[in-house]
């Protein structure tokens, strides 16, 4: 395989071997410490415009499976690993990781000292990076000159509504670049789901007579989204049970006056203890966040902090005091990652049922 380089904004260069697409690609580089689930991570749209470095050394050992996609088309800018498994046969395989990345035009680079890279990013925070063939001055100039788009949500969210019909509660999912796990969990609970673009207006939402609204996960900085999104949240949160996840959680916090801060380094993994405040129980969940709600800006007359990351102290969940509207920063659907937080979807369903009143 061809020698390629991973170059970083700060001038460092790592020699490695290319796999996947031979394209030159630039994005913000982050590291993920998850032990399993590379396919789910690569296809998660939160990584739009990012290059993901895996600390788990062998990636690709079970190929690409039917039921592990978190989006239809991945938009990650690159995959950085120590070792990519060159399998071409597997019990559940469709494609090998290498084949899949080629198809999706995503470059990968292996033989990287990802432990050193993680330590470097831990100190520096996320940086721009490129996967290139030659690490010369030109490449670094190009990298320096690249301005990464701030329209990530527009790039990955659905432009048009689409249904996922079932016979249960009527749920609207506002798509900011959702991961499939959300739809999977709603499906398991027989919810009759309509996915709307993030530009949907309050009126459009209300007209569909939903039992509940989900604000989905998505990539990028919440402040880059139009003000109208916050207005929409403010208008529906006191009328319809609301459940916000990831980027949705950040927007929910903003709609209620809190400010969002950049996390440095970003946090991507599934092994931090998270305390559920109300029960004092500790859970583990899949996390992927470049931003967090600034705890000092929370209006305690409006919002209650419901989950806290015990390692970095970040707010992992919020709830409106006066009505059933709540949010989590982590991914309660897992995929990949622990599954013990999936019952938050049950909580959402029960809130919707409660809001509707008894069935007899």
């Amino acid at each position, binding site marked *: 395989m061809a020698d390629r380089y991973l170059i970083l904004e700060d001038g460092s260069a790592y020699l490695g071997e290319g796999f996947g697409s031979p394209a030159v690609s630039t994005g913000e580089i982050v590291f993920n410490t998850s032990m399993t689930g590379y396919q789910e991570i690569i296809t998660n749209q939160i990584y739009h415009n990012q290059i993901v470095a895996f600390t788990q050394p062998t990636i690709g050992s079970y190929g690409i499976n039917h039921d592990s996609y978190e989006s239809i088309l991945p938009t990650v800018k690159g995959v950085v690993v120590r070792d990519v498994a060159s399998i071409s046969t597997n019990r559940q395989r469709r494609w090998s990781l290498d084949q899949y990345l080629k198809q999706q035009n995503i470059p990968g680079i292996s033989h990287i000292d990802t432990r050193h890279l993680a330590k470097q990013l831990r100190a520096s925070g996320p940086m721009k990076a490129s996967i290139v063939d030659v690490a010369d001055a030109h490449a670094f100039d190009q990298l320096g000159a690249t301005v990464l788009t701030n329209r990530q949500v527009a790039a990955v969210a659905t432009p048009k509504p689409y249904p996922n019909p079932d016979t249960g509660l009527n749920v609207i999912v506002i798509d900011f670049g959702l991961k499939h796990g959300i739809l999977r969990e709603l499906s398991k609970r027989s919810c009759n789901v309509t996915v709307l673009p993030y530009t949907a207006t309050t009126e459009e939402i209300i007209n569909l007579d939903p039992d509940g609204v989900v604000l989905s996960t998505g990539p990028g900085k919440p402040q880059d989204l139009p003000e109208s999104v916050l207005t929409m949240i403010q208008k529906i949160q006191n009328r319809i049970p609301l459940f916000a996840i990831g980027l949705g959680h950040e927007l929910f916090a903003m709609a209620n006056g809190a400010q969002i801060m950049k996390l440095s380094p970003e946090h991507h993994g599934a092994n931090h203890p998270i305390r559920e*405040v*109300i*029960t*004092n129980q500790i859970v583990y969940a899949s996390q992927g966040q470049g931003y967090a709600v600034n705890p000092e800006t929370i209006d305690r007359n409006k919002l*209650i902090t419901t989950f806290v990351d015990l390692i970095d102290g970040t707010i992992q969940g919020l*709830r409106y*005091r*006066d*009505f*059933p509207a*709540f949010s989590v920063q982590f991914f309660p659907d897992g995929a990949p990652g622990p599954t013990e937080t999936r*019952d938050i979807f*049950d*909580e959402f369903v*029960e*809130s919707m*049922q*409660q809001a509707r009143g*008894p*069935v*007899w």
Partner: protein
Amino acid sequence: MQKEVVDSMAMKRALTRITYEIIEQNKGIRDVALVGIKTRGVYIAQRIAERLQQLEAATIPVGELDITAFRDDQPLNIAMAPVDYQLDFEVAGKRVILVDDVLFTGRTIRAALDALMGGGRPQSISLAVLVDRGHRELPIRADFIGKNIPTALQERIKVSVTEVDGHDGIEIIN
């Protein structure tokens, strides 16, 4: 035949949701007091109180009420027995939340209301139950419901709490 309809996880979740709803409807926890109806209602009230304390960092008074003496379906001599005031805090001015495990005919709650009123004039009284199984005989409804479980009249609902039964869960027995 016994069938578990709510497991410990779901029961925990129901209590969590009731707690949040109490905060929602009372706009906070000022003047809120919980009164559990013996036996299991008391443990449920305590768990809700613990949750409120976790969230709001304030102590909520929890009282216990033994209403066997007040039931209108008890023989007359018991029902007429003199009533001691049972709570160790004043209900006057409080937003009292009565807590019981199962809401059925409503007679227990009526008795509890009688007992409570005997102790002063609360600002308000509302009702939280883990299970509403229907079949009301009085015009009483719950403000906070963990789970609506439609039942046949001859069926029984068994709520288990770790403190008494060694585990959490709700079963239908018929």
